[in-house]
């Protein structure tokens, strides 16, 4: 007698228990996924990882069944604030609303969205894809009047796009060519009112299409190099019964860049990185992405001088989003789950010299820069009582609570410095109002 591998596998799946998968819920969930993917990037590099911050079940595979020690989250080795420390923002005093748009029922159908704000203050307004507008169309909307200047048809059918650069002269959207599955950009010349398409045959096909970082006429993209592995025996089980992959190893990438004006200009930057960001004067990167970041490296763009430091993010912290602006670095982190399922989530702000500025620590919160080069950090809190949108002003070191309640949908793209986009739920959470606001001094 022998055991046949194929037969054993077939026998093992011959009598499955009832499937709890709800097919009716797949389509609405898929629609939400399409919308979230559209809004996942805010100019930071860890867009995909940032999406995982939403307060859902935590953990990795529970390989060993080891139980993580239940305790209270440790205090960061940095000046620390909590959501409850925020000042309630008042319209007209702390901020003013520039524009808003409501989709009453996004569960039923896709709608219309703010995809970002141009440098000259116009909203990139996207209509569709939805039942009445199956092929998305774009307009530049004046937030003061609501008037829309509809752009010529991009003519890419249903393909999805992500804003790269929303300038006064041109708009650059990123996408994936449906035939070649390669990264492309669509460039709209605002004066000539024409779209052109750019692609880079020399760019490795494995380049991650949704984690680009624009800087100085180039786009920086990551090509996977190594994948972090779970510890021997698997992840420990947290007090909430879920496997907990805090302090994950993180992934590494080879860094490539392409010119936004020359399809033959493709460069292997010869660097292995985790997350990458640019400020006006420096390039900032970590050793690894999606886990323990390792060291933070800062290179002067003027002199090529480099220095690096330990960000002291905490022993168990996974960095889930990463951004930099001016002399500040912003990292959103998940640092484990403790007694009663309390998450240790942090938004850590430090200087490019490695000095700790402030860390917001709380249960169920994430954050990212409001846009490339912005001095504002928008944070979403998922707690019942303290849930909503918060804004941290890097220039004034103040935390404001802008809204109560959080929406299940993405709140739009990036905004120029001083402005921010956020969403609030409507219609019992089925829809959302997207707001464009400006912080007041």
């Amino acid at each position, binding site marked *: 007698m*022998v055991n046949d591998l194929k037969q054993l596998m077939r026998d093992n*799946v011959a009598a499955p228990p009832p499937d709890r998968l709800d097919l009716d819920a797949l389509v609405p*969930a898929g629609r939400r996924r*399409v919308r979230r993917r559209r809004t996942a990037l805010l100019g930071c590099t860890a867009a995909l990882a940032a999406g995982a911050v939403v307060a859902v079940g935590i953990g990795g595979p529970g390989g060993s069944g080891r139980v993580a020690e239940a305790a209270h989250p440790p205090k960061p080795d940095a000046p620390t604030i909590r959501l409850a420390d925020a000042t309630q923002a008042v319209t007209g005093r702390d901020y003013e609303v520039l524009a808003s748009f409501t989709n009453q029922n996004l569960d039923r159908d896709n709608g219309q969205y703010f995809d970002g704000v141009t440098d000259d203050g116009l909203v990139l307004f996207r209509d569709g894809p939805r039942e009445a507008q199956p092929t998305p169309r774009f307009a530049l909307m004046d937030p003061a009047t609501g008037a829309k200047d509809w752009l010529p048809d991009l003519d890419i059918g249903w393909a999805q796009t992500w804003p790269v650069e929303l300038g006064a002269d041109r708009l650059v959207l990123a996408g994936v060519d449906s035939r070649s599955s390669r990264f492309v950009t669509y460039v709209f010349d605002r004066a000539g009112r024409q779209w052109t398409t750019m692609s880079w045959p020399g760019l490795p096909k494995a380049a991650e299409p949704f984690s680009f970082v624009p800087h100085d006429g180039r786009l920086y993209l990551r090509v996977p190099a190594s994948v972090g592995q779970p510890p021997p025996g698997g992840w420990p089980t947290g007090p909430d019964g879920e*496997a907990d992959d805090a302090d994950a190893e993180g992934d590494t990438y080879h860094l490539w860049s392409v010119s936004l004006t020359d399809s033959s200009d493709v460069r292997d930057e010869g660097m292995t990185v985790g997350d990458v960001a640019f400020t006006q004067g420096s390039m900032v990167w970590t050793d690894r992405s999606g886990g323990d970041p390792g060291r933070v490296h800062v290179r002067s763009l003027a002199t090529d001088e480099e220095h690096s430091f330990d960000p002291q993010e905490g022993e168990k912290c996974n960095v889930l989003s990463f951004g930099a602006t001016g002399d500040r670095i912003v990292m959103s982190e998940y640092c484990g789950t403790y007694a009663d399922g309390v998450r240790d989530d942090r938004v850590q702000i430090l200087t490019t010299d490695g000095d700790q500025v402030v860390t917001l620590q709380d249960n169920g919160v994430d954050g990212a820069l409001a846009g490339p080069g912005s001095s504002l950090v928008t944070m979403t809190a998922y707690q019942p009582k303290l849930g909503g949108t918060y804004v941290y002003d890097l220039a004034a070191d103040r935390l404001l609570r802008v809204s109560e309640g959080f929406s299940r949908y993405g709140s739009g793209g990036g905004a120029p410095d001083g402005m921010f986009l956020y969403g609030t739920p409507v219609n019992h959470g089925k829809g959302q109002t997207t707001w464009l606001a400006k912080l007041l001094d």
Partner: protein
Amino acid sequence: MRRDPAADAAFTEFAAANRARLRSTAYLLCGDWHRASDHVQEGLLRVYVAWPRLVRQGGEVAYARKAVVSAFLDARRKRSSSERPVPEPGERVSGEDLASAVADRDALMAALARLPERQRACVVLRYFEELDVRETAAVLGCSEGTVKSQTSRALASLRAMFEDESREELVVAGERSFPW
């Protein structure tokens, strides 16, 4: 991306037709039927996002299989999974009381669970989904050489585990030792 009712209906029909097979694959990968459903759900959501392109180009089933395997591999290294371990061979309550066939099936699931996930995926794709080396490489996004070496290591480990458990020899019916 178009989301007209006809496209949604076609997607739902596709999901209904393929969910059971995908769930079986996911179960062999993760060892837990509920988690398998989660991986299938995640995989089908990825299919939904790509659906218009898939419909134009074909290959929906292959894409769905790849999406489910990716969902499993992603869950292994991200924090969104609550996968439960299958019992280690020594922990089984069945012991000598259970019929030998049942014990052998349990032994296989326990042995699969002890393989590195990509080796496990190679075994499941090659011998349950019956994909060839090229197709398996396409699903896993790696070279054919990697598939061969990973499969070889996996089979060697599985055989050793069966031997350690004093079970009948594990073979791949109709195949030689290195079945590519």
